[in-house]
């Protein structure tokens, strides 16, 4: 016998449920947002509470160019996904590579900034509260960018091996959700660290 049948099987046949990848990624994004919230709260709470210098006003410079890089990568990854859905694999790969390049450029920007802070201003994670909270918050974000870049690169490698087709469009869409999230978090971090915090 079949396991269970309802006495009323003559139901309308349409039964659509959301795609599990998107729902799972949304869950991850909610969880990650909570983690970032705590770090942002700590940053704001400790603003101006450092006993010794340097202070944000003295040493921070607004990374406008690299911010533009990261934010525009959201656009390229979105367009890449659209191209894949339409079956244009080549343009997809080009746009995908541009996304990776923009993300890597952003990380390079973070590296430059950290290098300058450490070697010119002597600000490390243990210098004062500003150092602790700044490197933790920006570093947490950079970690997420790095993780994103690893995943994007894996997709690129599969793409170069001709394994990414229209069938993977939904998965690519899920991955781009993560990338959009990383970008959106940067808007918050940027606002908190470089605008409010100075």
């Amino acid at each position, binding site marked *: 016998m079949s396991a269970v049948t309802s*006495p009323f099987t003559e139901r309308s046949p349409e*039964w659509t449920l959301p*795609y599990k990848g998107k729902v799972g990624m949304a869950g991850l994004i909610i969880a990650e947002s*909570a983690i970032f919230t705590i770090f942002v709260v700590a940053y704001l709470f400790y603003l101006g509470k450092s*006993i010794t210098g340097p202070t944000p006003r003295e040493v921070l410079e607004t990374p406008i160019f690299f911010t533009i890089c990261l934010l525009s990568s959201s656009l390229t990854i979105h367009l890449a996904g659209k191209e894949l859905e339409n079956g244009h694999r080549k343009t997809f790969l080009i746009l995908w590579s541009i996304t990776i390049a923009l993300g890597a450029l952003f990380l390079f920007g973070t590296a430059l900034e950290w290098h300058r802070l450490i070697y010119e201003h002597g600000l490390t994670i243990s210098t004062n509260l500003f150092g602790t909270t700044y490197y933790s918050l920006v570093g947490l974000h950079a970690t997420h960018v790095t993780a994103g870049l690893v995943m994007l690169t894996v997709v690129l490698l599969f793409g170069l091996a001709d394994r990414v087709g229209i069938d993977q469009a939904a998965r690519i869409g899920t991955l781009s959700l993560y990338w959009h999230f990383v970008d959106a978090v940067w808007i918050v971090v940027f606002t908190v660290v470089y605008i409010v915090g100075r």
Partner: protein
Amino acid sequence: MSSDAMAIPSATAEARPCVEVVHEWVTTVDHKRLGILYIVYALLFLVVGGIEAIIIRIQLIRPHNDLVSPQVFNRMFTMHGTTMIFFVAMPVLFGFANYLVPLMIGARDMAFPRLNAFSFWLTALGGLLLYFSFLGGNGLYGAGNAPDVGWWAYAPLTAKAFSPGPSSDYWTIALLVSGFGSIGTAINLIATILCLRCMGMTLNRMPLLAWLNLVMSGMVLIAITPLSAAQIMLLVDRYLGGHFFDTQAGGSATIWMHFFWIFGHPEVYVLIIPCFAFMSEIIPVFSRKPIFGYPVMVGATVCIAFVSLSVWAHHMFTIGMNSYANSFFTITTMAVGVPTGIKIFNWLGTMWGGSIQFKTPMLFSIGFLFQFLIAGLTGIMLASAPFDWQLSLSYFVVAHFHYVIVGGILFALFAAFYYWYPKMTGRMLSERLGKLHFWLFLIGFHLTFDVMHFAGILGMPRRIYTYEPRPGWGTLNLVVTIGAFIQGAAILVFVTNLVYSYFKGAKAGNDPWDAWTLEWSVSSPPPAYNFASIPVVASRRPLWDLKHPEDPDSRYE
């Protein structure tokens, strides 16, 4: 029909080498096996945490006792709290959710089976790390072994100066790792419930267990993560010389308390909501009535989840917040009582006029209702800031939260064990041993935790190693310890029952309780694929519809 069409080979019939069986369990991604792994793992830690509780109680049995050293005592209450919350309550509830949710919504597995296995092994690793501290924590000479900073690990106790050696790091990393496991499971449960429901299983027809686990998972996402964030900060402080909680450099010890309790209080609801879920499945079946007020139950749960996110600082009335904060957290904390009260009335409404069967699961459920009510009432007392100033940090608080966790959560869990054990193993648990377990545990519980309230009111502070022979204290503590031993004996009866019934219990059949949800439609234990054909449901009680085609629920929905 389909059974002979499929001709499933009886793989379990022949004896296989032990290694093969172990390999199968270690590499499994089956939600039922992972569920059982979670539950067995939690039961092992329940025994360990219980032994730690017994050591605490023996130490406190009379004034000026010195069975263990103060250092060991601190380790015992730290490990007891951490173990019971993170490695007993969380895994056992995740285990039940893992096992039951796919079966109840008519799915063949969780949405991400490999993530599911990954999450379990993360949790398992967390528990092992925590207990490895007994061996590996002795980093510097005399640095001590197991963590002794309390399960809340307030700063600056965790600073390098006060917590040398790696013992606190074992605590931090164990909780971080198992926290990631919890987040994985929560994501998995949400995706399963939203994306894998069988045809006709609209949100409005979903069993309450699935609904409540959905809400619980949502809470895990936003409540466990603050703890993970705070643990990362603590690691930065301890290993990279950061100053998050370093008051010497302008850091704040208070903010650790905030971060911890932003996790810590919602955590209580993460634990109790799945227990509400058990109640909402068990009470209707043994009252032979559908649940009373289904939509209100869902609404109240969501309401609890929301309000519980804004009550955390009621753990911190004594640190000296301003009067606005005190008033805010008093009001929100009392407000949680409203949706919780609605739920209690709904369960009573379900029992009202029903033909109640006093089987063991129902006995534990009734115990839950009564004790959870009292726990809620002392909660409302403590929610009032001035009252809290008097009794915070006393045994009254210890009594209150053990009333929630033991009287509420553990009783609900025992009900769930007696109710779903037949489904998981194919055998009934013994009713005689079950009733013995219930009454012994009930007596032990009340001896211990009722009396603890009085000790608290008499002024006995918590977290103390020993105490002066003040009037009443010695007698009360003796009674509390006797109660603890009776509970220990009851747990032995329970474990005996689990083991004995596994081999000798009566065969359960598919549906021993004449219940209504989909898990009872398949064999006990269910086949690996759960459902030979995915069911189609038309009401909240699909099995009722199947058994009563002349009067199906779907006619009234």
